[in-house]
């Protein structure tokens, strides 16, 4: 029996505010859409903060029963530590990207509405609404709708430039993501047939390790990891994320893929029964490990900066899957560490990767190209941007004092504690390879400029947005304890 908790109305607000802002912006258009989006995202951050504080303070998940209709017939919104942390991350990244986007997508007073700006300012709150729906949703079918919201938003953001080369990679993304959604829906149908509800809290602990549940689990998992671009289903991500404009890439790599991640966690650690998790977790982690190694090596060999960063996303997503067999292990302490490590990896990657994509975009704008071999001089023209990129890189490598360090450290410890030490080898190899490609970029950017290289300065406010994100991913490592306490609330 779910009951609306004090502060539950915040969850409704977190979902309806950006949705309403998007609708109003859609109607008003032009300069108004920009103002509405900026205002709404700022308030959204405050709401996310309030949700996080409330969850932290009460030590229990927030819930809101919609319309007073109890599940299974009705639906509930829920925010545990995971949801609150991801919501807050999403709000921070979105606001930073919105402020960054003011440079490229500004509609001055009196100017006519343009396509890219209109779409950008409408889809920012749209993404916020989609993320809120995905993080807070308590019903597997409702989460399907959230997934589709994410897909549509991601697609539109990626096509913002209207570049011909982008249409093909986006079409590949859309088709593959849609197939993923349908597989997810198929599994949801089976679960409804087996249990007569899709409410996650009601399903928890009630599922049996029988054929319908397992088939549903396999289908839904495959659908979700297709959307997360886990190797070998990653083919769509690098061109789609690398080809998008910088602000969009940051959102796609930082946030959109995390929506499916939260759903995957809900599915595995709330819905699926323990024996199924135990059996399947190793497969997921093995795929994740492969993604880490292959993604990193391929990133190391890229010639274009944005493609390199995109392949790095493929690799970093792999880390998220290492937590599955660790969580399934019997050791409660290790499982708790693995949970924290996995969630923290998602958060720190969101912050670090969005900073890196924005930085890569600024570098490309300044130099007029993004060939890795000729980045020389970048550090002189835009030291802040290069520092931000390097800080993000440190977090990806897992060097202290970054958030990535805490995440990887926790995963490492958990893997040793549960006797699955082989995953720790993967984490270390991944860190090494990550160091390799981050180093390649930073060393190239630090090098003296090539003769004839004309780099133009980039706007300082944009640089500061990037730096803020990178510093946030660092702060996560300095102040992990507060983050960890929050993430523990309502953990499986």
């Amino acid at each position, binding site marked *: 029996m779910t009951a609306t908790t004090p502060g539950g109305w915040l969850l409704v607000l977190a979902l309806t505010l950006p949705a309403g802002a998007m609708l109003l912006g859609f109607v008003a258009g032009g300069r108004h859409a920009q103002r509405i989006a900026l205002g709404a995202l700022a308030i959204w951050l405050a709401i996310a903060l309030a949700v996080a504080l409330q969850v932290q303070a009460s030590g229990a998940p927030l819930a809101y029963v919609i319309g007073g209709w109890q599940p299974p017939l009705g639906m509930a919104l829920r925010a545990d530590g995971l949801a609150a942390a991801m919501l807050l991350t999403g709000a921070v990244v979105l606001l930073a990207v919105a402020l960054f986007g003011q440079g490229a997508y500004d509609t001055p007073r009196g100017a006519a509405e343009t396509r890219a700006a209109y779409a950008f300012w409408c889809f920012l709150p749209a993404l916020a609404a989609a993320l809120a729906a995905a993080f807070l949703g308590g019903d597997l079918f409702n989460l399907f709708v959230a997934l589709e919201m994410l897909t549509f938003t991601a697609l539109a953001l990626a096509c913002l430039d209207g570049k011909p080369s982008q249409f093909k990679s986006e079409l*590949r993304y859309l088709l*593959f993501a849609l*197939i*993923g959604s349908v*597989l997810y829906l198929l599994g949801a149908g089976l679960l409804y047939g087996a249990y007569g509800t899709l409410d996650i809290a009601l399903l928890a602990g009630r599922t049996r390790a029988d054929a319908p549940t*397992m*088939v549903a*689990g*396999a*289908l839904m*998992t*495959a659908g979700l*990891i*297709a959307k997360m671009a886990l*190797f*070998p*289903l*990653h*083919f*769509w991500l690098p061109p789609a994320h690398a080809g998008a404009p910088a602000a969009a890439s940051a959102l796609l790599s930082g946030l959109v893929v995390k929506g499916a991640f939260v759903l995957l966690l809900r599915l595995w650690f709330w819905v699926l029964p323990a024996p*199924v998790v135990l*059996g*399947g977790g*190793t*497969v*997921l982690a093995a*795929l994740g490990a492969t993604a880490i*190694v*292959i993604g990193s*090596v*391929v990133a*190391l*060999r890229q010639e274009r900066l944005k493609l390199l960063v995109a392949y790095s996303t493929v690799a970093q997503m792999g880390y998220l899957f290492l937590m599955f067999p660790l969580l399934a292990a019997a050791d409660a302490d290790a499982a708790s560490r693995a949970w924290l490590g996995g969630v923290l990896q998602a958060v720190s990657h969101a912050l670090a990767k969005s900073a890196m994509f924005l930085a890569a975009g600024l570098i490309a704008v300044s130099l007029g190209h993004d060939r890795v071999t000729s980045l020389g001089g970048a550090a002189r023209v835009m030291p802040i941007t290069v520092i931000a990129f390097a800080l993000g890189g440190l977090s990806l*490598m*897992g*060097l*202290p*004092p970054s958030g990535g*360090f805490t995440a990887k*450290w926790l995963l*490492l*410890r958990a893997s*040793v*504690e549960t006797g699955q030490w082989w995953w*720790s080898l993967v984490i*270390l190899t991944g*860190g*090494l390879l990550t*160091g*390799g490609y981050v*180093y390649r970029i930073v*060393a190239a950017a*630090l*090098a*003296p400029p090539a003769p004839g290289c004309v780099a133009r300065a980039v706007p300082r406010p944009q640089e500061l947005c990037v730096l803020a994100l990178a510093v946030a991913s660092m702060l996560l490592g300095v102040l992990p*304890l*507060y983050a960890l*306490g929050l993430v523990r609330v309502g953990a499986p």
Partner: protein
Amino acid sequence: MSLLLPLVPLVPLAMCLALAWPGARARVGGVLWAAPVPALLVALLVGQVPPLVAEAGGLRLTLLLDLPGALLLGGAAVLWGAAGLYARAYLGHQPRFAAWWLLTQSGSLGVFIAGDLGSFYLAFAVASLAGFGLVVQDGTVAAFRAGALYLLLAVLGEIALLFAFALLAVGALGDSIAIADVVPPLATSPGGHVTALLLVLGFGLKMGLVPLHVWLPVAHPAAPMPASAVLSGAIVKAGVIGLVRFLPEEGAPAGWGSALAVFGFLTAYWGVVAGLAQRNPKTVLAYSTVSQMGVIGAVIGMGIVLDIGASGLHAAFYALHHMLAKGALFLGVGVALATGRGARRWVLPLALLLALGFGGLPPTGGALAKAAVKDELGADLVALCAALSAFGSTLLMLHFVRRMMDAAAEAPDGRATPGLLGPWLGLGVAALVVPWLLLPWVGADVGKMWSLEAVAPVLLGAALAWPWRRWADRVPELPEGDVLVLARRGAAPREALGRAVLRFETMFRPWPAAGLSLLAVVLGLLAAMAG
């Protein structure tokens, strides 16, 4: 009183942050030398400073000062201070350099007082990574190449340590991450050998144990003079304090003492042999550092083998002398190059004295350092090995003095400014005198330094230095970083491997392959879930 401890890393850090303020920039640059003053103060107060334990949430941070730590901290503080003064005269005011300098210093000093895994790792990483900025200061292509190698190996070392610390934290009883709590169970824990290997890898990289020494001879010649001095003097000592703290005689798993000793001596000899084939005086000094760190490794290793409780203190004392003397020699190279032929008069006497001190010429501080480690290196075969290394050191250092004079002879004549002379002289005198002042702390047998077995290697080395003068020019010059050549030969297979991975990844890019993978994933997951 214990609240002084955080000042050690925080004062340099605060000065580094102050550099961001344009108004404070020039002022901070002018007092670069003052950053390590709190560290020196704290080191002198050793014994009166209780440990500082700060509870933050579930994490307990510990800062503490023991005798080995105080020796190293004090020595490093003197070196950083002197080199800071020298840098002002040598480089002028360069805010960027000052920033890297202070950041590195913060880590380098902090590592000597860190008492738990977290703060130790943090300080170690800051010292390692920020050192990059010092290496590439000159901005030349060679400097960037050296910086690249430095950074790469530093990161490798970090990763090895990270893994080792993870194992330590897991093996510890309870949740404490204090070094004193996590190290004792190491000897008996199942993953002890892996942990020890990773610790030796991580700290050995920093100290320059063969074959992990390659960054030293590449980075030192590329860095500006004061940076080389602190790299060689202070930063490599982070590895020493690491071994002292994490492989104490009661905590190391069986076999690791002798392994460390063997690698130590190998390093000591390798450093001498490779250094003798060098032309650049700074490279020779770098190899000398490699060699001396080898000796320290051997001391710590034998301390474990012979179960000598004070071996950490002895090693720290030996390292203290090395810090001061090696720092002085590096600064001396700069003075020599500034004075040209006048160096013969100005620089030569002190340089000779310091150089012979490395061999153990009494009554220099070096001889005291050698006497202090007699407990560990004084018996049987080991004594012979130690004598051989002392002989080699003498030979190598005289080779260095000759190379330095050669280089000075080619430099334009001039006068060294007081800003260069003062710190150099001060540091050199400190290297000769300070070990005597600190003798009561360590309690070495002074008489031993006059014994025949202590003096003979110096005399023999000095005697052979003359013939080597002739031979040295005929020996082909070894590339800086010697075994690095082998690593370059490995580039082709690495390239092939990378290309193979890329080809493999490309197989999954076409649509049908991805679609088939998706279906296979569904069935594979199902099979795994069911079985």
